[in-house]
């Protein structure tokens, strides 16, 4: 029954995608090469290299634009994690006077993994509504609402989410920009608690065997009443940016996030490099983050960016575990230092870049104390067609 539903939804996505492609204005191809020494971001590091292939189609007409993209990510050492994604959407821009506009978007996406990680297969749908206005020529106010629904093959991860944000900025003649943003968000897992032991529990990443390589694993949480679980949070962010002419930009930003209610309904939080892991996202933690970013535009349109980020995070409901996977009763607490440098050259129809980053994560759960470098090389080629200007 569940498979039939997934097939019907996939067919709907396919038909919609085909319709969009027929009306496309432009066509882009992208290739990215990734290398990491710690794919699953644990102390038991596993290296891998990934190749990501992307196709993009867009169309814009009377304020309504359509987008579709298709990606396939191939993992060399862990081929079971290879996955494909399709994203479809349309958005609409509506002016409200000469200083304001409304923006609406609707989209759907699907991610499909190979059999080892097929419990991660999912379809999702989201709606965005936004409003932007110039309160003064040097001050912008933005409001945004985002609603999303995701349905996974392993229903434990099914969820609804909603976020609301409000931002305000001010630009000064000294080329300084100050900005603040407040966000409220809520995520509701529809049925993370199981009333009875299922006949089979999906085993992911073990190559058919019992070994799970991503961390402690997705152990179902049993509750005699079953049902859902919500987690609500709010955040406040501040940014100060300074322009040094039109070629150099420097910014520092910081944000604080609080969990207002609820906890994570899983036994463990795990982040994978390049793979969206349903147990880990913007809703799953509280704490703070600070970033410093330097952007320099060199001659011949070569752009250099360097960033340093420090993050301190706690995960409500998540406990430090023993090596055997038994909870200790101690709440998990992580800090992370990351450095990233990126060099990009923009040609008229081609963009090429190389990026290097390094992250050092410290956790009171020894499994999540790790450090890893990452290398990313990418190229994107755009070909406009079907357009006569």
């Amino acid at each position: 029954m569940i498979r039939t539903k997934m097939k019907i939804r996939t067919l709907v996505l396919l038909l919609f995608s085909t319709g969009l492609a027929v009306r496309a204005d432009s066509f882009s191809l992208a290739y990215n090469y990734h290398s990491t020494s710690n794919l699953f971001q644990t102390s038991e590091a596993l290296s891998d290299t990934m190749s990501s292939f992307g196709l993009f189609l867009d169309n814009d007409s009377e304020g309504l634009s359509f987008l579709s993209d298709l990606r396939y990510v191939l993992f060399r050492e862990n081929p079971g994690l290879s996955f494909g994604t399709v994203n479809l959407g349309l958005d609409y821009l509506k002016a409200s006077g000469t200083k304001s506009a409304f923006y609406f978007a609707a989209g759907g996406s699907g991610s499909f993994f190979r059999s080892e990680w097929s419990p991660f297969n999912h379809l999702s749908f989201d709606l965005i509504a936004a409003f932007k206005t110039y309160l003064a020529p040097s001050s912008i106010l933005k409001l945004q609402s985002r609603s999303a629904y995701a349905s996974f093959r392993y229903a434990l991860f099914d969820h609804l989410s909603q976020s609301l944000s409000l931002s305000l900025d001010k630009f000064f003649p000294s080329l300084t920009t100050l900005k603040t943003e407040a966000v409220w968000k809520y995520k509701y897992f529809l049925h993370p608690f199981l009333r009875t032991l299922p006949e089979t529990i999906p085993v992911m990443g073990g190559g058919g065997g019992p070994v799970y390589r991503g961390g402690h694993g997705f152990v179902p949480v049993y509750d005699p009443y079953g049902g859902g679980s919500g987690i609500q949070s709010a955040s406040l962010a501040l940014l100060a940016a300074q322009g040094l002419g039109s070629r150099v930009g420097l910014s520092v930003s910081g944000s604080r996030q609080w969990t207002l209610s609820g906890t994570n309904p899983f036994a463990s939080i795990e982040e994978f490099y390049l793979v969206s892991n349903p147990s880990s996202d913007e809703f799953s933690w509280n704490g703070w983050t600070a970033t410093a970013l330097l952007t320099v535009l060199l001659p011949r349109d070569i752009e250099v960016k360097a960033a340093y980020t420090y993050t301190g995070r706690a995960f409500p409901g998540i406990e430090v575990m023993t090596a055997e996977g038994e909870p200790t009763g101690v709440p998990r607490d992580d800090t992370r230092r990351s450095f990233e440098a990126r060099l990009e050259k923009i040609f008229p129809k081609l963009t090429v870049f190389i990026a290097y980053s390094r992250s050092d994560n410290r956790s009171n759960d020894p499994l999540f104390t790790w450090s890893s470098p990452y290398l990313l090389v990418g190229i994107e080629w755009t070909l406009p067609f079907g357009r006569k200007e």
Partner: protein
Amino acid sequence: MRRTLALILCGWAAAAALAGQESPGQAAGHFYNVDKEVRIEGTVREIRFEPRYKDRAPFLVLVLQKAGAEERYFVEVGPSWFFGQDIHQGERLTVVGSLAGEGAVIARQLRLRGETVIVRDKKGFPSWSGGAARPRGKRRVGSF
């Protein structure tokens, strides 16, 4: 999963092959002319969001005062920029674009805050609806 992806890829390829349709063009006499390309460095004096082309979303138009001069240019950027980027009055930027009538410039490239953004390619095809550097579809909204 392979069958699903193969099905989607086939649908895409077939549709893309049929996609050579012409979309509505812009007003006669107002087009990107590579022979009239200029580079102007200046300060943003005014920001407008107004209709510029038939069958297109309203455009972000910047009134740019050339550095060290009184000359002002009306720089036409693109529709998605209104949400994707936050430009303020008083910001300094460099625009590369085509002169299109008295004081009007159709932007191809913008440089501000140490970043370069491609708005159109060298032949004048707009990249705000398809291109490496533009906000794509739902990403018009941008982030903090």
